[in-house]
């Protein structure tokens, strides 16, 4: 592993594609018991420019938690979460976290890129099977990978692997598409980083390596690159 950073295999939580990221020259930092790729390029400016053009960052180790059940949405509201009134739409929380309302009885919460939100931990602690409420936590933080694809060419790249029109004028910020990407089921949530278009791509963690390879292959045409959490935070102004 990179002598300048930490070894992901030395930590208990390991991202689904940490080897691929390490092979691409990632420098890792510790985050929540795991290692996330902080940067790839030698200088921050290069990586930030790449992220504006087309880049993929692995955010799989950032907090993510699902809730399902007939009363899930109401229960989340009672916990102070804004889950809006539309399905397939994400709602920004005051602390920067997102609450993605996937279906009438399903929501997905994920932490902000600055990792300042404690929403997921708070709700995980609040949920209890002893409560006779039909709102059940689902460990999507482990079940899903979470890639953030950013840049002005992102939609062009997605068109090579996905049949849903994700162009910025057709797929508004915070909209959600549940679709197939390279024949793998994913959820796509648009979540721009400042003025740079960006999309969370979430899917079965067991398919993370496969889809990463597909996306990197599709990105080549547009000179896409891997980006670290640092570049993502810079674009987000976090």
């Amino acid at each position, binding site marked *: 592993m990179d002598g300048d950073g930490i070894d992901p295999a030395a930590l208990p*939580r390991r991202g689904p594609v940490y080897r691929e990221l390490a092979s691409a020259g990632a420098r890792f930092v510790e985050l929540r018991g795991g290692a996330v790729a902080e940067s790839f390029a030698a200088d921050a400016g290069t990586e930030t420019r790449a992220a504006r053009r087309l880049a993929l960052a692995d955010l799989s180790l950032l907090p993510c938690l699902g809730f399902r059940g007939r009363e899930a949405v109401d229960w989340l509201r009672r916990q102070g979460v804004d889950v809006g009134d539309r399905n397939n739409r994400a709602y920004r929380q005051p602390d920067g976290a997102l609450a993605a309302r996937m279906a009438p009885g399903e929501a997905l919460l994920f932490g902000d890129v600055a990792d300042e939100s404690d929403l997921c931990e708070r709700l995980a602690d609040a949920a209890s099977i002893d409560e006779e409420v039909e709102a059940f936590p689902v460990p999507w933080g482990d079940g899903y990978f979470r890639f953030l694809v950013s840049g002005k060419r992102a939609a062009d790249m997605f068109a090579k692997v996905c049949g849903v029109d994700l162009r910025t004028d057709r797929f508004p910020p915070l909209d959600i598409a549940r679709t197939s990407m390279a024949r793998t089921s994913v959820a796509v949530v648009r979540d721009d980083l400042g003025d740079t278009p960006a999309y969370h791509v979430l899917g079965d963690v067991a398919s993370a390596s496969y889809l990463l390879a597909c996306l990197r292959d599709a990105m080549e045409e547009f000179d896409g690159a891997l980006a670290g959490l640092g570049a993502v935070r810079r674009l987000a102004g976090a």
Partner: protein
Amino acid sequence: MTGVNRLPAPAGSLIDRSRTRTFRFEGRPVDGFAGDTIASALAANDVWVLSRSFKYRRPRGALTMAGQDANALVQLPGRPNVPADVEPVADGLDVRGQNYDGSLMRDRGAWIGRLRRFLPVGFYYKAFYKPRGAWRLWAPLIRRRAGLGRVDAAAPRGRFDKAYLFCDVLAVGGGPAGMSAALAAAEAGAEVILVDENPVLGGALNYARFDAAGAAAARERRRLVDAVAARDGIEAMTDTIANGWFADNFVALIRGNRMFKVRAKEVVLATGAMEQPLVFRNNDLPRVMMGSAAQRLIRLYGVRPGTRAVVATANDDGYGVALDLADAGVRVAAVADLRPEPGGGGMAAAAEARGIRIETGHTVSSAIPGAGGRSVRGAVLSRIEGRGVCRGGETVDCDLVCMSVGYAPAAQLACHDGGRLAMDEGTATFVPRDLPAHGRAAGSVNGTHALDAVLAEGARAGWRAAAALGLDAGAGPAVPEAGGADDRNHDWPLFPHDDGKDFVDFDEDLQVRDILNACADGFDDIELAKRYTTVGMGPSQGRHSALNALRLVHRATGRPLADAAPTTVRPPYAAETFGVLAGRHFEPVRHTPMHHRHLEAGARMMVAGDWLRPSFYGAPHDRERRVLEEVRAVRGGVGMLDVSTLGGIEVRGPDAAEFLDRMYTFTYARQPVGRGRYLMMCDETGVIVDDGVTCRFHERHFYVTTTSSGASSVYREMLWWNAQWRLAVDISDVTGAYAAISLAGPWARKVLDPLTDGIELSLAAFPYMAVRTGRVAGIPARLLRIGFVGELGFELHVPASQGEALWDALMSAGEPCGIRPFGLEAQRVLRLEKGHIIIGQDTDDLTYPAEADMTWAISRKKPFFVGGRANRVHESRPLRRKLVGFAIRDPEAPVPEECHLTLRGNDIAGRVTSVARSEALGCVVGLAYVAPEQAVTGATFPIKVGPRRFLEAEVAPLPFYDPDNRRQEM
């Protein structure tokens, strides 16, 4: 200037005279310009023979200059059958002709043409199938002679891929109609994709002459192209071919090595029309070409197509050809107008004013071949005396014959999704009918040819498409007036010759008499005649033969043409390369969190559904020994198996137990918290479809495991059933969220004990089939005290992100005990020794529980479970087969294979489902279906292991290994 036939600018709108391109044709260097096609560059250098015909090996040259015919197919390195008339030249390109022996110009196989009389259509059906078996001798000889290009299996691989495109309106065809449609739709706010197969927009405006002065086309083209470029909302894609129009406006576009998949809300088909040939003797000679081909050579490539020309026409467009030829310095020896009088559009008058000889009521009845049939040296003009009848003749010297006798719509796309072509006797050609929903046609594909009418029709089609989208499109453009298509198509442009060579289908070398003979042989419908003669089945797919063949068949059978319909048109519109079809194929694969640890340990991975799983650890040549070592490790020490692929489903809610009682055969309402229980699932027909274990962690919470391959289908079934039952339960598939490791062997407890934090592992505290939650190596875990391999075992389910850390911790903790990972092959031996079945391997799509001796897993007390009623019916009937364990005691006997048949007398009783040589048991053991009366312990039955080879197997009680279960419950 490159080439003796090159014309000065402004002729040649597509070529860049500042950039020379040198390629080789038949080994000789040829110079062209960037923008030239292979055929245009050759023509500029006075090379007109491009290929040899399919059957008679006749020299052939460009016919359409539009990539629509087989005459222009050439061989490139690694690419056969490339249309030379649209393939751009490139430096260093090595181009060869196709289908000849010796050289293209002097084909040693051309003698076959002299046997033409003895090779009538269908001759090989009649000649080569007797005596019996003769075809096997003839076929290789015939196939060696026939064919086109050659596939080079060693050709370097290209990079092909696919992508999606999105739009509101897809306008197919970048001519005047398509551009007008695109503009009208975009002006209304629609997002439009405009595609054209040519390198520039413009369609016929690029090469055809629409007025006597020859100025209208260029003016109109400039106006439209500029407007398209200036209009937001139009993406123009040139060099792009729309190759298939499928359900719900799913259109496949191909550009270079990429296929684009478009789902358009509205489609405007503006694909134009294809000029049709005149049928006369020697109408296939090089430099007998469509009038539009000559115009393309002149206008697009700056190539003079001849020095002295005869134009055969049946419309004013032919006069436009004559005028263009004259403008290019070609002496037009004559225009033979098949009509009694020329049209009144002014073109004929302009030709006459230029001193061009016009012979009305005449046709070209024959072309006079030059040396070797490689050129034209004259044409015979004959007076038309009736439908397809001409008399007399005057030979006119010429080296070029142009044909402008009519059009057929390029409407193939419309037929891919339910549209059809119908014969319109008024216009003497096909017209598209019953277009797909949200599709409309405009321009010459619709039979509209006059430029003003084409523009109006295109604009209206675009407006209608926008209106259909719900856009505020305003008042629509005026309905176009009748487009003047009435006299463009001659109703009988066929003048058969007694000596033949009057080709109807150039691809297949079919002459008029071939079609007529097919009818005489009883193939009196176009669909039958097509299959007998192969008319329309060549590379150009009937583009130039369908109309004339249909005319001939209907005339020969005495049926009116009004009833005629062409043969079925199927996608693709143009030939596709295998690369485009195969390019960028996604094959998802799933990895467990420990995947890389397996690779690092030398695992041989195998595909198991979507997953990759370790088969065994070690070199392939060492497989048997490695599998045996892994089995020994589990039986004698401790091993660990990655079982993350097992499905994991959370079932939570007040009705969770009731839900499981309905879904599975056992009963779960009284399953204690902290206990696991076997699960078996049947479908509604009572067939076993899955099994697993359920762990009750709370009164309202069950964690259900499924087979690896069954996870998604079980989850789907659960959702489907509960959509009807509406029980208060939530079902979540968390397969990927958990990594799971099976730790098995007599030392399993010893390995696990130091890693657990606060979980008592003793038999008393944590008995067989108990489940616990806690921490293992600091990782939150679900612990299941279950066993599939017949030894003391624990299944540890932990968050996926920490699966690899758990694996590492167990490997470290187990090192003193000699722990080793084992793969699926060892697991299958171990579980077989224990007599456990694998759903899908030991069962099939008909196996119900009684057959598999699994009725012990059915609760008889609950009122309902899926498949319960069917099972009661099954059980009320006699068994027809039964799954039994068997042993083969003979140590010298070979090991049968799975699916070897079991017999009862001479009848098939069943098959072997699992089998292995067991070191622990000292014999071969397996599972097999046998007849019910054979399913008695100690009875024997034969297994057929080869032709007349049988093994004697003995029915043995299950489990084979540790029948008292002391080892797994220790």
